[in-house]
Structure formats: C-alpha cells, structure tokens
C-alpha cells in the first residue's frame, strides 16, 4: 500500500509536468461541452419548400399561404416548370417541391379528383418522411375546411387531432438529449485514450522494464497507472456537468450520487479496456488505431444518436457488452427523468459485471505480456 502511494505521487507529478496533458484535462471537457453540444441536433427546422403553381386560383393560393404560414415550411422558390424543380432538388436548394396541377380548383369543385404532386429530396429518408407527413397534415386540414365551407357538416369529415406533450423536456430541447451523451463520450475519451496512451508511452520508453526489477508488484504498477485517470475522469465529468448546468441550464432530476456511482463503474470498465488495448500495442500510434476503432464502434452503437431499440437483433445483442450503451441510457434516465436506483438497477448491475470482467481480463493480459 505504501509503495502505491509513492507510485501515485510520481504519476501525478508526471501528469502535472506534462503541460499538454494537464491543459487537455481542463480544455477537453470545456471544448466538448461548449462546442459540441449546440451542434448535435436532429431537430428539424424549416423545410425548404418550392412551389409550382400551375393553377393560379384562389384555392391554390390559399393552400400555399397555409403552407407558408405553418411553422414547418419555408417557401423558398417558385420554379416555373418540372425541369427547374428538378434542378432545385439536384442542387440541394430545396428540400421538397410541391406541384399544383392546373386542374386543381376544378377538382375541388368536384369535376375530377384534385391531385397534388410532391417531389421530396429523400437522401435523408427520415426528414423526407416527416416533411411529407407534415405536408399531408396541412393539406388535410385545408381539405376539411374546403368541405365544411361547401356546406357539409363538420361531423362528416372526421379529423383526429394529436396533442403531444413532452415530459422531462417540454420544449424538446435537443441539447438536453445530447448532453448526457456528450458527457459519456467525454469520459470515454479521457479515460480510455489518455490512460492508454500513457500506458503505452511507458512501454515505448522502456520505463516499465525498470519497474520490473524492483519489488513493485504488478498490481501495484497497474493501479498506479489507472487510478490517476480514474480520478481525472470523475473530475472532468464534474467539470463537464458544471459547464452544462451553467451554460445550458440542463436539468438534473435524479440523484448526483447515483450518477457518479454509475460513472465510476463505467470508468473502471473503460480503464480496463485501455489496459487491455495497451497490451496490444507497442507504440502510441498503434494504440490510437486500435482504441479508436473500438471506441468508434462502441459509441456509434450505443444509442447516442439513434435509438437502440430500432437496431436489428444482432446489434442489440452486441450492446449487451457495450458499456457505452449502458451509461448512455443511465445518464439520460437519471439526469432528465430522475430515475432512481430501482429503475436502473438492472443496467447498473450489468455495467458492473462488464467492468469487473474487463478489468480482470485486462490485468490477466497485462501480466502475461508485460
């Protein structure tokens, strides 16, 4: 135990002296919080709608004004013909094009079926679908009003209104959604990357050989390398959280203790991974590649941007061993919904099992190779 204290003192001194690292410890959370959080949003703002009105009737104009009046659409252009509309989509200057045929008002009067043609830029399939569905809503509302004004009873045209309410995040602020996720990335980056690079640096410069001759035990050596980053990781988490609280006003409904406890377990898992990857690399560059590869996969699959429930079965199976996925869920639940220990017990337990497994495996691998 005493030896560990000496080793830890050495580690912290070295970290302090490493100006780059010590600056990064402060800068990375700040930068990530301040720069990334505002950027990562799927919120759909205005859809650029181009309209070709071949009908030029009061009816078509009314429809157009309804669309431009809605909060979803922004009329951006009025192409004269199909070719121009096509070009707009190709150039990315419009997200959707509405083409009103010249017999639209006649159709409304009952002569034919009134049709509308919509061209949507479906590169982003989901926004295209959502945009389409918004347009349909506006059209339906308009349709209803047309029918009512022609004398039919309102009850003849049933419409179901959907009134949504968003709990825990009433304004549907995307920052609240993403911020817990960014915090997770933060700890992962610091914990895994920095610790691992540090470990490999030792290997590269041969200082670990020197330690081998001393009576320092393997576990003491490992602990001395890992504990500092555990502490730093938690510190940075607190820093990031504080920034989030001050700058973005994110709510924190649940228990701070629970939050940090889960983060601590997560850090153990992540540091275990760092240790394991460090045995696979003899240079920092190699470590970076290996670690980056796995971290990227873990983060992308974790449900940070897209729901894990929508993933195919194999992906969901994978996430059973993905610590990032667990913390992502836990973070959001505890921070925004105020979920308590009972609610996340299963996730927390699974995370703990992962942590213990990773660290044990890593220590075993480290002893064998070093």
């Amino acid at each position: 135990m005493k030896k560990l204290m000496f080793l830890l003192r050495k580690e912290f001194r070295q970290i302090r002296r490493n100006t780059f690292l010590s600056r990064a410890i402060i800068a990375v959370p700040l930068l990530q919080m301040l720069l990334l959080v505002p950027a990562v949003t799927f919120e759909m703002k205005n859809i650029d709608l181009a309209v070709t009105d071949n009908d030029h009737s009061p009816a078509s104009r009314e429809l157009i004004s309804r669309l431009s009046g809605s909060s979803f659409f922004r009329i951006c252009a009025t192409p004269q013909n199909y070719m121009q509309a096509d070009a707009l989509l190709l150039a990315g200057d419009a997200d959707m094009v509405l083409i009103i045929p010249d017999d639209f008002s006649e159709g409304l009067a009952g002569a034919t079926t009134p049709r509308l043609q919509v061209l949507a830029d479906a590169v982003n399939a989901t926004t295209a679908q959502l945009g389409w569905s918004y347009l349909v809503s506006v059209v339906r509302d308009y349709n209803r009003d047309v029918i009512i004004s022609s004398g039919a009873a309102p009850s003849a045209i049933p419409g179901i209104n959907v009134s949504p309410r968003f709990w825990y995040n009433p304004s549907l602020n995307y920052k609240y959604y993403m911020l817990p996720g960014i915090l997770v990335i933060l700890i992962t980056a610091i914990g895994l990357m920095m610790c691992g690079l540090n470990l490999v640096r030792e290997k590269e410069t041969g200082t670990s050989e020197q330690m081998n001759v001393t009576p320092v035990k393997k576990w003491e050596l490992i602990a001395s390398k890992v504990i500092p980053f555990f502490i730093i990781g938690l510190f940075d988490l607190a820093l990031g959280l504080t920034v989030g609280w001050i700058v973005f006003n994110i709510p924190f409904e649940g228990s701070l203790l629970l939050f940090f406890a889960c983060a601590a377990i997560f850090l153990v898992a992540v540091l275990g991974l760092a240790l394991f990857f460090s045995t696979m690399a003899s240079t920092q560059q190699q470590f970076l590649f290996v670690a980056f590869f796995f971290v990227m996969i873990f983060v992308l699959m974790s449900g940070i941007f897209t729901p894990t429930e929508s993933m195919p079965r194999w992906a969901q199976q994978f996430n059973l061993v993905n610590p990032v996925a667990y913390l992502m869920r836990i973070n959001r639940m505890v921070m925004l919904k105020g979920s308590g220990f009972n609610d996340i017990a299963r996730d927390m337990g699974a995370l703990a099992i992962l942590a213990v497994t990773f660290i044990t495996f890593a220590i075993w691998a480290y002893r064998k190779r070093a």
Partner: protein
Amino acid sequence: MAFVKKEFLHIFRDYRTLIILFALPAAQILIFGYAVRTDLTNASLAVLDNAHDEVSNELILKLDASEFFDIRYHLTSYDEIDPAFKKGQIKAAIIFPEDFAGRLTREGNAAVSIIADGSEANNANLVTGYTTAILNDYSAGLTKQLTSAMPVIVPEVKMYFNPNLESHFMFVPGVITLILILISALMTSVTIVREKEFGSMEVLLVSPLKPWQIIVGKVAPYFFLSLVNVIVILLLAWFVFGLPVKGSIALLIAECMLYILLGLSIGILISASVQKTENAMFISFLGLMLPTLLLSGFIFPIENMPKAYDYVSLVLPPRWFVEIIRSIMIKGAGFSYIWKETLILVVMTLFFMFLSAKKFKVRLGEGGK
C-alpha cells in the same frame, strides 16, 4: 522509390494499421448501414384507453400493426405513466379520452394525447410524427367513406434519389469523408512526426534525398491506400446494400483524389508544427475527426445548427466534400452542380500546401528538428 516501398512494408507489417485502414471502414459501413437508423422501429408504447370503444380499439390495432410501434403495455391509470418512463419501459404513452368515438361522430373532431419521453428528444419527435401520420390515414379513410361525393385531395409523393427510403444513403458519403480524412491527414501526420521524434528523420535529411522527396515518399503510400479504401467502400456499399453510384464514377474518384490531397497537405502541416507524436494524434483527433463527425453535415444536418456553426463549417473541408459526394453518388449530379464546392476544395488544398511548405522550410532552416 525504394523509400516508398519501405513505407508500404511498414504499413502492411503492422496489423493495427491494417485495422484502421480496412476493418474500420468495413465496420463503419456495416454499422451505418444496418445498425444506426434515423427512424424508429418497434418502439415500445403504452396505451391508456379511456374510451374502450370500437374506434379506439381499431386505432390501437392499427398503431400496433405498424412497424414503427409495438404496443406493449395497456395501462389502467394515468399514474402508471411516470414510473414506466423512469424505468425506461416505454417511449410514449397514447391516451384516448372517454367517449372518443362519440365525439368523433358528433363533432367530427376528437383529440388523442401523446405523452412522449422528452429525454429522448429525437424519438419523441418521431413518435409524434408517425402517430400523426397513422391517425391522419385513418381519418382520411373515414372521410372517404362518409363523403364519397366530396372532393378529397390526393397528394402523391415521389421520393427522389432514395425511393426505398434507406437510412444509409445519408451516411455512406459521410463514412467516405471520415475514412479519407482519417487516413490521409491523421496517419500521415502521425508517421511523419514519429519519424521526427524517434530520430530517423535526421538520417533521411542527411541522405541524398531532397526534403520534398522524403515527404512525398512518406505520403505516397497513404495516397494509394486512401484511393483503394474508397473503392473498397464503394464496392462494399454496392454489394452489401445495393447502393449504386448514380453519377459519374470518374468524377467521384477525381474529387476523392482532390480531397485526399487536401487531407495529406493538412497532415503534413500538422506534422511540421508538432514535436511529439501524441500531440499530433491529439490535434488530428480533436481538430479533424470530431469536427468531421459532428459538424460536417455527416450525421447532423448543418441547417439545424446554430448560425455560428454554419459559418464555422464553411472552413471545414469535410463539409464541402460530403456535399460533393452526396451530390454525385446519391443524386447523380454532374460537375456543373458541384463546381463551386470543388473550387473551394482546390483553394483550400493550395492554401494548406503553401503553408506546410513554408513551415517545413523554416523547420529545416532551424537545423532539421
């Protein structure tokens, strides 16, 4: 030439480099193609049916039948909603008020409440959107029945560029951008700095090779590897999900080469400015990787970001490149549509090349360190 060969051998001997070069793009394609979806499937919902009439029942069945939703819980009281959210059991709860069918028939208007889990803002939006669509569909059907004599507007949609509405159309161009910058900038900067740091750079500088030859020698393998990678990605995309290149492949490859050059010059610039390998990696990572991932329009559309980011992304090469690739691959646009973006990339490349050449001259003047 021998120098280039040595560099190649270096790369291939190290399995970890190969991981990044080949396994990473493959994995990304897989993940982005299959796992990461922007839509919602089988979202767990709860239903609180206070009406218990045939309309509400029919609607519930309709919702359950859709691929978006999976109605797992039939609640009996409002108070059950909060705990269900807290446990993460449901994404939203749909509430039918009493006398739902009655209201619909009498007044022609009834409201359904959705309480969505706002902590997952993205999902909440989607849930609302899909539910609206399904309910709209139903009421349109009713209208048809009731008012067959009345005009019903029929809007038809043609989904351009992506008729099957696949998620990965959006992502594959982004993956290409990411991989290219990873290989061309990150790896070059790291290898050059390593050479500097561990000393063999001085040996090279003393040899009859001119400095620019050394640089080109170091960098050439990555140029080729990047190209190979692009082709591999395209092939993968084609074979795995049938994603074709709509536009001209030649144009695509040409633009890729330009972008690779750009990446290489950035990599060289970084390596000229930094002494320690880990610093090079850090900068490449934070300064290139993350912005590419998050700010280039790869995943998150730029138009949704605060205005300031829009301006910042203007100077990020990935932002332009993603657009170019998307235009060519997905939309099939020709050069006339992307000349502006291409020009910007060209200017950037020249700029970085100029800067790195200057930096290197200065460095060498200082004694080759």
